[in-house]
């Protein structure tokens, strides 16, 4: 038997069992995205008109690579959470909904892994 009070055992559980956590992570990544997106725009503008070697070493340089890694991790997680809400709002068939959520997860994971790999390769050479 459980010694939790009835209120204690349901606290934090919404219809999706993790609603407040989802909301909180969406906000956290939103806050992180603000400075990261601004830095991203500055980096992209400063790369304009440069040749391959220059751009590759710019993106691979430690500071820029760290900013890009942070941006990718925060933005991909943020867009994954956001797309899940869109799916939950508009896709009503239970099977299609689960399928869409699986596709969203795989798409986000593949995108994130590819970006992290590319940034690390540019940083560590090869």
């Amino acid at each position, binding site marked *: 038997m459980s010694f939790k009070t009835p209120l204690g055992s349901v606290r934090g559980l919404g219809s999706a069992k993790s609603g407040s956590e989802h909301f909180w992570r969406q*906000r956290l990544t*939103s*806050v992180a*995205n*603000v400075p990261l*997106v601004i830095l991203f*725009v500055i980096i992209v*503008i*400063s790369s*304009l*008109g440069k040749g*391959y*070697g220059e*751009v*590759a070493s710019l*993106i691979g340089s430690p500071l820029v690579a760290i900013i*890009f890694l942070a941006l*990718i991790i925060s*933005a*991909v997680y943020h*867009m994954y959470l*956001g*797309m899940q809400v*869109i799916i939950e709002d508009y896709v009503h068939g239970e099977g299609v909904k689960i399928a869409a959520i699986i596709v969203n997860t795989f798409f986000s994971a593949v*995108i994130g892994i*590819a*970006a992290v*790999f*590319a*940034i690390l*390769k*540019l940083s560590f050479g090869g």
Partner: protein
Amino acid sequence: MSSDLVTKLPLPEETLMAEPKSNIERPLSPHLQIYRPMLTMTMSIVHRMTGAALYFGTLLLVWWLVALATGPDYFAYVQNIAGSFIGRLVLFGYTWALVHHAIGGLRHLIWDTGRGFDLNAIEWFARANLVGSIVITVALWAIGYSVL
């Protein structure tokens, strides 16, 4: 599930005798189409649309990064596509979506603190979001062209 519960409950005689009411047309809550379209409403929907656009825009960013990691030839190929007329059009749209979504997101974060809910503030934010996103996007591209 709730209807199962209801049928299992002991009901007073008169309710049991009553006609089933499930096919009565009840008034529906007012739906979107009966409201006059407002800027605030549009900006709310646009925030979601730009979010979805950015979702697929990330694919372009990752394509560019992977091209850069692949080598000079493939990178030149991708840069050519990005620099074409259609490429620039897409990237201009991407820039606007990013700026608009960022401003709209900031507004959401301010709302989350419980502030900015009076009608004047809401209306002001909707306008600032629209005008600000256009001005900033054009300014960024002007800077971009001056760097090139």
